[in-house]
């Protein structure tokens, strides 16, 4: 069933907002539960059964708080930044195919759009940090910019390598190419390109860095920079940054699912569709949390070294190698 244009737009807006909102709220809950299990705690239990109403209580609390703009901050940019941070994630979701027909816009340059909007996130954190006029925030903002610039490159290199074999930027077509069982997923298509698992690993690391997740959480770095770029934000201003963090994780995990894990295709042949897409998506999200609650934070210069000295050369090498096999085949 393909909806006509205006309805499609409305359906997307409602759907995407609800999806992002629910995800942000319940991923926080999930993260707290998962972290608790890793640490042998029960996690939130008091508000609602198994603490399920906790995100709602937290949301209400954040909404009820004053959005403080302290006198020395840049008033306009300070208010603008939280809005800036969430919008790109919403845009990215427009082209992600959640199911065979569940895609707001079947767009030929879908992947390009995702990366284009994905980068706006950095700008928002930079704005937030800069406008705060707080030394910690400025340090964090500067870190985030150099970090994201550094990790955008290997990520794009990996994706370009993948596109060499796939030959399309349309996310739906990318998924369709991976139909027919686990062995057709890009992750394990080693006969097409023996470097596929390595590519996935690089992509995963870059995804962690791009979404500012531990062990690369330089934007927040709570034990050094208090709350990094978000130090001066209160109430829903902080809440929006928080939501955006989770929205970005969802976008990152979705892209990984589409590119490497066969999108909505079922690994066992039953129930193909959105269900499997979500399973893969949340499995990835879980792994992101697992990494966060296991490892310490890296140093900032090592983070940059990792990208410039290891991931970018590796990505370049993979690109050359793939081009070579394609030529020789």
């Amino acid at each position, binding site marked *: 069933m393909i909806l006509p244009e205006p309805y499609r737009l409305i359906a997307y807006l409602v759907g995407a907002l609800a999806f992002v909102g629910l995800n942000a709220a319940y991923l926080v809950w999930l993260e707290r539960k998962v972290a608790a299990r890793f*640490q*042998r705690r029960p996690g939130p239990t008091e508000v609602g059964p198994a603490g399920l109403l906790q995100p709602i209580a937290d949301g209400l609390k954040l909404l009820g708080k004053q959005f403080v703009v302290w006198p020395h901050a840049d008033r306009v940019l300070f208010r603008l930044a939280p809005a800036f941070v969430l919008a790109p994630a919403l845009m990215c979701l427009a082209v992600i195919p959640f199911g065979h027909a569940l895609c707001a816009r079947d767009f030929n340059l879908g992947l390009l759009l995702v990366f284009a909007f994905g980068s706006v996130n950095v700008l928002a954190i930079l704005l937030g940090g800069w406008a705060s006029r707080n*030394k910690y925030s400025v340090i964090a903002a500067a870190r985030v910019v150099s970090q994201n610039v550094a990790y955008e490159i290997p990520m794009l290199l990996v994706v370009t390598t993948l596109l060499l074999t796939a030959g399309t930027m349309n996310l739906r077509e990318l998924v369709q190419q991976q139909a027919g069982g686990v062995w057709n997923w890009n992750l394990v298509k080693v006969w097409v390109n023996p470097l596929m698992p390595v590519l996935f690993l690089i992509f995963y690391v870059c995804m962690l860095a791009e979404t500012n997740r531990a062990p690369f959480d330089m934007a927040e770095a709570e*034990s*050094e920079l208090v709350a990094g770029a978000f130090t001066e934000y209160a109430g829903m201003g902080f809440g929006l940054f928080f939501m955006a963090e989770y929205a970005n994780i969802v976008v990152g995990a979705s892209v990984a699912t589409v590119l490497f894990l066969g999108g909505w295709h079922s690994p066992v042949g039953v129930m193909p569709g959105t269900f499997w897409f979500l399973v893969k998506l949340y499995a990835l999200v879980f792994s992101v949390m697992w990494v966060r609650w*296991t490892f*310490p*934070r890296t140093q900032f210069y*090592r983070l940059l070294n990792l990208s410039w000295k290891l991931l970018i050369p590796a990505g370049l090498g993979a690109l050359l190698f793939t081009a070579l096999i394609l030529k020789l085949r």
Partner: protein
Amino acid sequence: MSPGHPTDSSVSAAAPRETFVLNVGPQHPATHGVLRLKLTMDGEYVLHAEPVIGYAHRMHEKMGENRTYVQFLPNPSRIDYLSAMHYMHAYVCVVERALGIEVPPRAEYIRVITSELNRIASHLVWFGAFLLDLGAFTPLLYAFDDREKILDLLEAVTGSRLTYCYYRFGGLCNDVDEQFIEGTRAFVKHMRGRLGMYHKLVTENLILRKRLEGIGVISAELCRKYGATGPVLRGSGVPCDVRKLEPYSVYPEFEFDVPHFAEGDCMARYKVRMEEIAQSLRIIEQAIAKLPPGPVMAEKVPRVIKPPPGDYYFAVEAARGRFAIRLVSDGTEVPYRLKLRTPSFSNLALFGEAARGLLMQDALALLGSLDLVIPDVDR
């Protein structure tokens, strides 16, 4: 390799750089208490670090001059609340030395057992808090789970979980029971297994190793200059431990090593403390095996404590280093002077010099590796 950076002295002739002062604390997640650091920064590099202390000053020394010897008993465990047993140990021992009291062996053995348990608990807190500084949250919870077991043991014996106030002049306020002995034995076994897990989860971790190796190097010379002791000094390769050098209590009867590593970096200090946990377990095991029967209180303790006039000194190896008390008595019921030498103070003192030229992130790792208890600095 950590990128080096020219510090103040070497660039005085060059064009002035734009620097700024970053105020860390007194309320900051990395300072664990009310310590304030004034960092002069060039970008992310620390050019100059100045610790500002005194926010938790409670005049313990002055209090000592205003109350009787018995009334000061609750105080030592509140100077460094993580190392309460060691501080009590130093205080009761200095008074016992002044009075010339012989402590029954069973009491001394129990003192050693409880002190070493306390040392493990203290190191576990440090372990958790240090990793929290480095951005790993989970080990803190594991460490506190283990520490809880120690606190339960000590609570059953002393009646409180942190500020024990368990030792008395001439012995202990009460004896331990069979349950404590069994519990401690079980704990030693349990903790050995957990140490293995910590090494797998943390010590061998690539990210952690890269964060600590070669970072924040402190030379033995720097330690000597500022009087740093304990794991900080041992992390600089000097096997200095009061338990070995000026043996007190019944420590000479046990076999244990003094772990020391020559590197002087954060990793060396980390390894010293982790190794010390293992050594403390060894001591506890031996002490339990040898625990003699008998009374836990000396017979000839005067009702009114009036040490003869004189100058007395006693040092112990607390979890953070050498803790010493100098007691000057004028023969009355109240000490004339009670000087406390706290290890955290000296260990913090070298921070300013050691942090120079480091990145802020590494400087905070260095701060964490010093294992400071701020009330112990300020006392």
